[in-house]
């Protein structure tokens, strides 16, 4: 076991897979000599060279499209989109090509590509560098979408994503890069499509993923001293959602909160709420509550930005109200 940051863990997963399978290679802007915008890929470039860690021009569309083409011919590219916000320039290769080629050709083609995207706010990098767009991709049949929140899950899911024969969107969060936990040294994987109960509790199921996990756990610790026990469910995979784990938890607690950084409307929370309504209606003591980002672009000023992202205090307040007798309208 080694204590490492999530950034190191993801890098470790990439390194191990690149050693194990020579068809795995990395492509993206400034991933090589520069080392990657947060330093993730630099050591990999030092270890594997220009051939396996390829610097590209600023051409998101071509980068991802090239990934599709290379994957179609049997390689396993790990393509990096420096900030998730830039994916808009490369939507066609992901949505119209990678997600659909297998289906349209009746199973003749597969596109085993991983697209890494860095999202999330909290660093005052403003509206065009702080988004959480995972719901877009989770909505597309043919894609898989994962969003690890810990170092352990980061390494395990990276390995699974690379080994998966489909295009996997791998969502990273800027503020999680520094979080650390224990990571096994051996060759382990985290299965795609399985959620993880990070904290067992009897009162409320708090369902979340990615950047919000630390806040969920902090709120749970605070509420425990008041006798309210939260169960924190880390989704880990957004498509396909692990409905079995979600429903089992909510049937036990009878109350659910869905928490995400992305704006409220039509987000992952809406999907999970519908799932719970459909699958656990008779076990609910209160309607499902969603806590999410505000319906505004991310402001630059840090105080303003802090208002837009859910806080531990908000989670605690909602959980208290939910616990003390449920909805009252």
């Amino acid at each position, binding site marked *: 076991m080694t204590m490492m940051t999530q950034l190191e863990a993801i890098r470790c997963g990439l390194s191990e897979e690149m050693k194990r399978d020579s068809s795995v290679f990395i492509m993206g802007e400034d991933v090589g000599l520069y080392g990657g915008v947060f330093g993730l890929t630099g050591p990999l470039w030092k270890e594997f060279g220009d051939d396996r860690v390829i610097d590209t021009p600023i051409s998101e569309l071509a980068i991802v499209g090239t990934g599709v*083409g290379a994957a179609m011919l049997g390689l396993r590219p790990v393509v990096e989109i420096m900030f998730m916000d830039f994916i808009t320039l490369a939507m066609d290769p992901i949505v119209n090509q990678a997600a659909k080629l297998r289906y349209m050709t009746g199973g003749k083609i597969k596109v085993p590509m991983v697209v890494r995207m860095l999202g999330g706010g909290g660093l005052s990098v403003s509206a065009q560098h702080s988004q959480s767009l995972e719901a877009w991709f989770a909505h597309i049949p043919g894609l898989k979408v994962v969003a690890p929140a810990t170092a352990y899950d980061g390494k395990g899911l990276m390995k699974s994503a690379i080994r998966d024969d489909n295009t996997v969107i791998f969502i990273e969060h800027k503020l999680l890069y520094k979080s650390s936990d224990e990571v096994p040294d051996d060759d382990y994987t985290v299965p795609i499509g399985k959620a993880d109960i990070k904290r067992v509790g009897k009162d409320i199921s708090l369902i979340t993923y990615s950047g919000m996990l630390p806040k969920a756990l902090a709120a749970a610790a605070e509420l425990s001293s008041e006798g309210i026990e939260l169960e924190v469910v880390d989704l880990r995979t957004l498509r396909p959602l692990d409905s079995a784990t979600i429903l089992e938890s909510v049937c036990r607690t009878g109350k659910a909160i869905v928490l995400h950084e992305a704006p409220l409307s039509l987000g992952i929370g809406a999907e999970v709420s519908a799932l719970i309504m459909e699958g656990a209606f008779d076990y609910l003591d209160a309607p499902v509550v969603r806590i999410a980002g505000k319906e505004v672009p991310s402001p630059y000023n840090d105080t303003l930005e802090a208002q837009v992202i859910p806080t531990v205090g908000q989670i605690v307040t909602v959980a208290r109200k939910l616990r003390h007798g449920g909805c009252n309208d």
Partner: protein
Amino acid sequence: MGTEELLPLYKKMLEIRNLELLIKPLIREGLMRGFSHQSVGQEGVAVGVCSALSDRDYITSNHRGHGHVLAKGLELKLVMAELLGRATGCCGGKGGSMHIADPSLGILGANGIVGAGMPIAVGAALAIKKQGMDSVVACFFGDGAANEGSFHESLNLAAIWKLPVLFVCENNLYGMSGPVKKMLLIEDIAIRAKGYGMPGIIGDGNDIEEVHKLTAEAVARAKSGQGPTLLEFKTYRWFGHSVNDAEAYRTREEVEEWKKLCPIHRLRDKLLTRGVTQETIERIDSEAKAAVEEALEYAKNSPNPEPEAAFRDVYA
């Protein structure tokens, strides 16, 4: 090129044309649905380019791709069955006209998105180079696609990495209803190659021998590690953009003028002058006709896909 080489090309072009000519009647009959983009008049480019490629080489195609996939070696009956949406189609009836593919033949797919094939072709070429394969990728696209961002990004990327790609532009003078005169200030798209540091070659798309020659040169360049080439073949489509096109944007005179330059007729005339008999020509004509009719029969008698097929092959 010798007549032995040219005769199969002649037959191939005829087969393509015969199939394309069936599209409108099939749609009217209701046997074929959705959109279809016929390439009648452009057979010379498809067949000419593919004649310079081997089984080891790859192509990406666009929405007007029936000619490309047939020229690359896909069987008539598999294409026809796919157009009719049957289970026996090359994509099991799941893709249709614009998404025909067969990677075993090096056909990485027709594509419904203009310009989408270019980055894919670059990616395939990257894989070829990385794996040391003796192959090239020919990427078919039209004059309209030359204005997509993907064109510029793909050409630049292929050039800087010296990838074995042939960017084959079929300039048929119209991007849907947009005439090149209006949509470009330049006369020849090939000059854009200079902007990316690669050779830009112009050719008569309706002269199959010229197409073959220029393609072969580009293939040789690519295989020797000199990188990509932009090939621009001037040609013309006889029918509208798709089946529902009233063609208000061009004159009948222009169409008639270009019909005179038909690649099939020109090759036939060439073959006759080079000693091929009329009988041989007529024999090939009827063989090509029969082949397409046989394919149609095959397709018509094929079953529809079973309902469960709608849910298969979403994920590998």
